[in-house]
């Protein structure tokens, strides 16, 4: 036991002495939370719209005015022909083109049936469907208002009224969705990279050779290696939660001790993984490369940016081996929904299983190489 304490003391001295370490521990969470939460968003604002009004009526101007008044739209130009408008889309200086045909006002007043053309740059498919939905809703709204003026009653059109309710994130604020996920990303990066780098550094500098000819037992060495990063990563989580509360006003809806309990188990998976990487590599460069390879796959498939449920079936199966997906889901449940243990016990036991698996694999590999 005293041996572990000596190893721990040594590790902490080394970590804290490293000049890049402290700023990294303090600035990475702040930067990641602040930058990613604001930028990694699917909300579309300031859509650049080109209006091609060929009708020149008060009704057509009113429709264009509805777009101008929307906080989502920014009219960048008025053009006089469809081709000219298409040119703006082609150059990428506008995302949407609204074409109002001649006779638009006449048709609306006389037949109550008129059409407009809404063209969207759909290179980014999901953004395009959002932009289309915004544009359509503005046009529909306008259509209803016109119908009311024409018939004097809205009852006909609104036979079915939908009353939407948004739970857990009533303001549909994307940041509320992102912050818990980014917190997970944060502890994962700290845990995985620091542990993978640390052991392999001993190999690279040759100190492991000296350490191996001492009575230090494997479990003592590994505990001494993992515990500091386990503590640092949990501190990191606490720090991140504080930023979420102060900067974004996102308080943890559920139990904070429960969140830390899950994080403790999750970190064992991550640290075990980092350790496993460091046992199969000889240099920091190799360890870095392999860690990044898995990190990128884990992150992209984790449901941090895109919902796991909308991935193809095979990807959802692959995701069963992605610890990041588990913890992001649990973290969102605890932080936003206030879920209790019984709500995610299945996911939690999945994490426990992976913790045991990665740690025993790492210990087994470490034994084999020495």
């Amino acid at each position: 036991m005293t041996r572990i304490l000596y190893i721990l003391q040594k590790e902490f001295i080394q970590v804290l002495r490293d000049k890049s370490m402290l700023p990294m521990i303090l600035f990475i969470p702040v930067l990641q939370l602040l930058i990613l939460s604001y930028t990694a968003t699917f909300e579309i604002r300031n859509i650049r719209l080109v209006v091609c009004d060929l009708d020149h009526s008060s009704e057509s101007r009113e429709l264009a005015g509805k777009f101008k008044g929307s906080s989502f739209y920014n009219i960048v130009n008025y053009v006089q022909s469809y081709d000219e408008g298409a040119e703006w889309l082609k150059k990428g200086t506008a995302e949407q083109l609204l074409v109002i045909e001649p006779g638009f006002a006449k048709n609306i007043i006389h037949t109550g049936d008129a059409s407009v053309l809404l063209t969207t740059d759909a290179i980014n498919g999901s953004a395009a469907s959002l932009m289309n939905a915004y544009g359509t809703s503005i046009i529909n709204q306008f259509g209803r208002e016109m119908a009311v003026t024409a018939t004097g009653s809205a009852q006909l059109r609104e036979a079915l009224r939908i009353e939407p309710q948004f739970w857990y994130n009533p303001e549909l604020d994307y940041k509320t969705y992102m912050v818990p996920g980014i917190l997970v990303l944060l502890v994962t990066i700290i845990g995985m990279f620091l542990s993978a780098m640390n052991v392999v550094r001993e190999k690279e500098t040759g100190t492991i050779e000296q350490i191996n000819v001492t009575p230090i037992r494997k479990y003592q060495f590994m505990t001494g290696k993992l515990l500091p990063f386990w503590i640092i990563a949990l501190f990191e989580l606490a720090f991140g939660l504080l930023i979420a509360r102060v900067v974004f006003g996102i308080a943890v809806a559920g139990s904070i001790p429960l969140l830390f309990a899950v994080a403790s188990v999750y970190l064992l998976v991550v640290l075990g993984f980092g350790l496993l990487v460091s046992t199969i590599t000889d240099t920091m460069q190799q360890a870095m490369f392999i860690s990044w390879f898995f990190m990128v796959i884990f992150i992209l498939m984790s449901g941090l940016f895109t919902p796991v449920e909308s991935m193809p079936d095979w990807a959802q199966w692959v995701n069963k081996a992605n610890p990041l997906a588990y913890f992001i889901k649990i973290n969102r449940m605890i932080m936003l929904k206030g879920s209790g243990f019984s709500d995610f016990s299945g996911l939690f036991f999945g994490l426990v299983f992976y913790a045991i698996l990665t740690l025993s694999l790492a210990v087994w590999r470490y034994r084999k190489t020495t």
Partner: protein
Amino acid sequence: MKQIAVDIRDIRKSYTGIKALQGINIQINSGELFGFIGPDGAGKTSLFHILTSLVIPDSGSATVAGYDTIHDYREIRKIVGYMPGKFSLYQDLTVDENLKFFAGIFRTTIHEHFELYKDIFAQLEPFRKRKAGQLSGGMKQKLALSCALVHKPQLLFLDEPTTGVDAVSRTEFWEILQRIKYMGITVIVSTPYMDEAALCDRVALMNKGSIMAVNSPENIVRSFGKNLYAVKSEQMFPLPGLLATIEHTKAVYRSGEYIHYLNEKDDFDPVLIEIYLRACGHGMIQVHQIAPSIEDCFMVLMQQSKAQKAA
């Protein structure tokens, strides 16, 4: 009766087809200062790795202080001190922190066996708060030795401790090793420097994974033939080839600015060399008898084993 500290029996080890060790047999006595002498690639480090329980041999066995290097590796790690060829302490820890760390993991303190390394540590005293990575080569080596002695090992393994160290520090280091030996610790050293062999109680001459001779440096030199001559002429390049054609030649090799020549016959007359060379058209011929050194023994043994292999 002498106690055996290290008993090596027919150790073999290959690394991806390269035979690093091909059947090593040696007994090292307790309290000895024993040297493994040989060039790079002789297998010294491989042998040290096996003896310090870092590597498992392909075949054969070895005991250190009576403990088997494979089955009792935990006991061995408690009682040996090991100084790897490459500086292997924590460069970002200070002198004190390194020493305390190694004392800690051996469950001892810096003070418990301080008398063992106080002479060495005295020179490190002014740098105790300095990081190990910022020490000079000689100081790093002294720190590594202190760390290897902190738990008062029964045996001390030093893998090429003087490689890359200046001549003054080397002499000083060997004096330290002598003192450690007198404190009752078996010291096992490897070195590529032939001149350091004379400082050991006994040496093993190693080449290409084999032991060519094991004896005290005096006996090794004594068993060497008497007729060793240093030869020089104005045409140095064809000289070894010419000398090799003389009858009963045992070995011919270059040594510094001379060619060393050894003849098997005890009654060999060196005048023969001069006559022969003159007949071949050489001028400015110098021939004089010299006392053999360990390096001469090494060269001759190496040529013999090469000849044996060829035959």
